[in-house]
């Protein structure tokens, strides 16, 4: 187990740049001088690679080399998108209550949903089904085929019901279980 590998793992996993003092505190079994030499050797070792060891803001940190920035930024487009809670909530309402109008969604959520709905429409998770036959003829929304694909559902009946999810909280239901044969 080499000191350099130890420093490498410690600096890599740290959530902020680690100062020499900090590294020394963490590795009391090693001499400060040896740690300094180790850091120097690691800097040389990584020099010219895609990832380099740098001293920033008074601490040591691994970061991608600026030379490769053009490739690294391509990530931004490849990153998986996670949904905000408000988008999730709105999507849930549309999924479970379709066909549903924006007013109904906003009534349920208690906040304006124009922006979120637009995002959902753009992402093709939600679509306009038509207009409701009531005064004002508001648009009504429902989920799309893409929605089913993303959630891996065959059809809307595959959506878990609230009752089913809530049953996970419920008390044991051991009594029904006895005769069930397992395939």
């Amino acid at each position, binding site marked *: 187990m080499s000191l350099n590998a130890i420093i490498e793992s410690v600096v*890599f*996993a740290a*959530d*902020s*740049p680690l100062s020499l003092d900090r590294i020394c505190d963490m590795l009391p079994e090693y001499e400060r001088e040896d740690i300094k030499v180790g850091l120097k050797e690691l800097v040389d070792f990584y020099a010219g690679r895609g990832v380099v060891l740098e001293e920033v803001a008074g601490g040591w*940190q*691994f*970061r*991608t080399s600026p030379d490769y920035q053009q490739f*690294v*930024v391509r990530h*931004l487009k490849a990153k*998986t*998108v*996670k*949904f905000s*809670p408000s988008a*999730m*909530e709105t*999507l*849930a*309402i549309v*999924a*479970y*209550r*379709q*066909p549903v109008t*924006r007013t109904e969604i906003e*009534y349920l959520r208690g906040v304006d949903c*124009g922006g979120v709905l*637009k*995002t959902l*429409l753009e992402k093709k*998770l939600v*679509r306009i089904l*038509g*207009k*409701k*036959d009531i005064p004002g003829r*508001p*648009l*009504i929304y429902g989920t*799309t085929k893409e929605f*089913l694909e*993303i*959630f891996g559902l065959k*059809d*809307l*009946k595959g*959506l*878990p*019901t*609230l*009752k089913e*999810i809530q049953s996970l909280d419920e008390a*044991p239901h*051991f*009594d029904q*279980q*006895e005769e069930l044969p397992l395939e």
Partner: protein
Amino acid sequence: MLKLAQEENPSLEGFQEIYNVRLEKFEGPLDLLLHLIRKNELDIYDIPISVITRQYLDYIKLMKDLNLEVAGDFLLMASTLLHIKSRMLLPKEEQEEEGEEEPDPRAELIRRLLEYQQYKEAGMVLESRALLGREVFTRGCQEPLPNAGQVDEGPLELGLFDLVDAFRALLARIPADSFHYVAAADTFNIADCINEILALLQEQDTLRFDEIVDEDSTRERVIVTFLAMLELCRLKLIRIFQNEPHGSIWFVPAVANDAAEAPHE
């Protein structure tokens, strides 16, 4: 279940000596049975059912004596064991009357025990791996990247549980009476049926009534489908055609799919 150290319960010592049962944390009745089998060095393929039943019941009794709550699952297993035991006691002739070769009444239990043991062990093997966040770690620092904020292309990552959980959280906030009814899966209802028709109409432009209901459909299903159709018609989501009297009823979506119509609210 609880594990009780012997010294904490000196009064139990005698009991434990007699029955050689030690209270431990058992994950369930199968776990307890495996323990008893192992402890007595029994052959799992040929469990002496009366021995194991007795010990199992002693254990349950011990739990009760200690005022420990005995989970229903443990009682259920007790009744299963007693049932197996009684079947083992049936005279041979009586068994034969019921049919041909009666399978060993213990077979199912043995299979469950073996299988349970397998997964229990697999769980331990998995748990002993180098786990992310325990033995291994990924890069801790955020990579400083320009404009990392405004990103929303790329594949979506969504889970069904997240969706339902979002809805659940919402319902928890909202007074119950704002929701007349929320999907129930067990019975076939109009909402389900509407969803089904809408889903089908996403894939095809026209739909026949008898594509949704057939001769095997229950009366209830036919009525519900018909009501769903009327509801959709009322919402102006579909239009209905019938080419001849008593002919097939056709639906078409009232609005072409994803009409270029932008939300102009």
